[in-house]
């Protein structure tokens, strides 16, 4: 069964300025520690996650809420295995697919078809899987013959369609989504909703970071409220979202 468990996870994000980035500065600093002028080592540490304890089980549909900078994206990235926690542990079972930026890795000079393969590989699909899914991707994005033209000839709407079609074709046991996107025109919007719903139903766990509370109420059964890198509340979606709305006012 798929699960994700975080135990006492802390994540300190180091932010380097130019000084902290320079080998020359670091070497020079070694000779004269403690002199006032060269005191700062150019590294600021931000506590992005602070002692997070969580366990998501199969069947959970979790909505992540919280204001900007509360640690929602960082939490998603930690669960995806992109950031390793500074302290604490992250354990999981099942194939995790993060969809943080749906157009990641799209290449302007490659044709639509080539981009399907590229994006598919980046999402961790095998060539066989990609081949099997190409048909449905092509049908869904409705780009027809444009798929044989390079991506640079596409309008921005067409790009998003293609990116969306490939990204949502992925099979994941644990799906992590960040701010699902307004996609294309109204007719496509409706199709996209269905497709997302289908994607969700294939996954055992879905974690969704979003600002639209109505959407979270509709899709999720649990909600997680992040505040300043900490878990402010975690529980049934109604309770948590209501509390959050009251707090925000």
């Amino acid at each position, binding site marked *: 069964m798929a699960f994700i468990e975080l135990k006492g996870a802390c994540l300190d*994000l180091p932010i*380097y300025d130019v000084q902290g980035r320079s*080998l020359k500065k670091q070497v020079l600093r070694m000779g004269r520690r403690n002199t006032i002028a060269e005191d700062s080592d150019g590294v600021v540490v931000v506590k992005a996650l602070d002692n997070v304890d969580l366990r998501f089980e199969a069947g959970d549909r979790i909505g992540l809420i919280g204001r900007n900078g509360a640690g929602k994206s960082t939490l998603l990235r930690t669960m995806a295995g992109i950031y390793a926690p500074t302290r604490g542990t992250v354990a999981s079972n099942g194939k995790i697919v993060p969809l943080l930026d749906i157009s990641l890795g799209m290449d302007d000079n490659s044709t639509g078809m080539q981009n399907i393969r590229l994006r598919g590989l*980046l999402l961790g699909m095998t060539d066989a899987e990609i081949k099997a899914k190409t048909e449905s991707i092509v049908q869904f994005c409705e780009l027809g013959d444009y798929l044989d033209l390079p991506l640079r000839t596409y309008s921005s709407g067409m790009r998003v369609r293609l990116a969306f079609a490939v990204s949502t074709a992925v099979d994941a046991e644990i799906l992590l989504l960040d701010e699902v996107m307004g996609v294309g025109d109204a007719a496509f919007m409706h199709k996209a909703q269905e497709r997302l719903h289908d994607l969700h139903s294939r996954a055992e766990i879905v974690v969704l970071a979003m600002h639209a509370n109505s959407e979270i109420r509709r899709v999720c059964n649990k909600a997680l409220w992040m505040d300043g890198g900490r878990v402010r509340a975690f529980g049934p979606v109604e309770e948590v979202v209501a509390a959050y709305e009251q707090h925000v006012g």
Partner: protein
Amino acid sequence: MFNLIFIDLKQSIASYRLWTLLGWLEIRQRYARSRVGPFWLTISMGVMIGSIGVVYGSLFGQKMSDYLPFLAISLVMWTMFAQTVQEGSIAYINSATYIRQAATPKLIYVFQVMWRNLVILAHNFIIVLILLAVYGVKDWAVLPVFIPALLLYLANALWVAMLVGLLSARFRDLPQIISALIQIAFYVTPIIYRPDSLKRFSFIVELNPLAHLIELVRAPLIGQMPSLTTWCVAIGLAVAGWTFALAMTGRYLKRIPYWV
């Protein structure tokens, strides 16, 4: 620490489809919509070899039939090594968007650089083949030695790229330092001159591991067997270098997403 890096190494090799594709894209992007495409590289390398060959060949009083193949092999091989290290130093930096958005194994970004430069090497190697065809192969018997020699050479380029890529992700002035070092290495390594022509300063060649690496891949193609010392230096460097590069990458693997 080795445990972690071996897992990454295994996964990276397994996703060869991804890094070969990414490597190709980069080449295609550079030469998009040009009729000759990547063969521009071959042409410019050919022109360079031709002009350096004529000028330095006469300066050093060399026989063209010996000097041109010598120079072509040295330059083509050196370019591959230097480019791999140079681009290796920005391997993680340039792939920052991928590293921050997807949990791929990390070494694929170094492999991608390696692959790209292998493809370029293949294009440049045409010149070597042409020159060998024109001036004749000196000794067919030692020619097959080129294959293990090349593999050893690549292994050495790869660990250097791996190491500088990691360090450059943390220290952003390192790529500049490295390109300066490569420039110096080009002059102190017998690439356009013969290893034995330094006379009084022959220690520069003897103590320079790069001289041995170049000699390793050059000798079989110009009909000589690389010396035992050369083999030992190359193998020793590869083993020590890989161990160190893997240990360092393993130690800081988890920090890479924070750095880029």
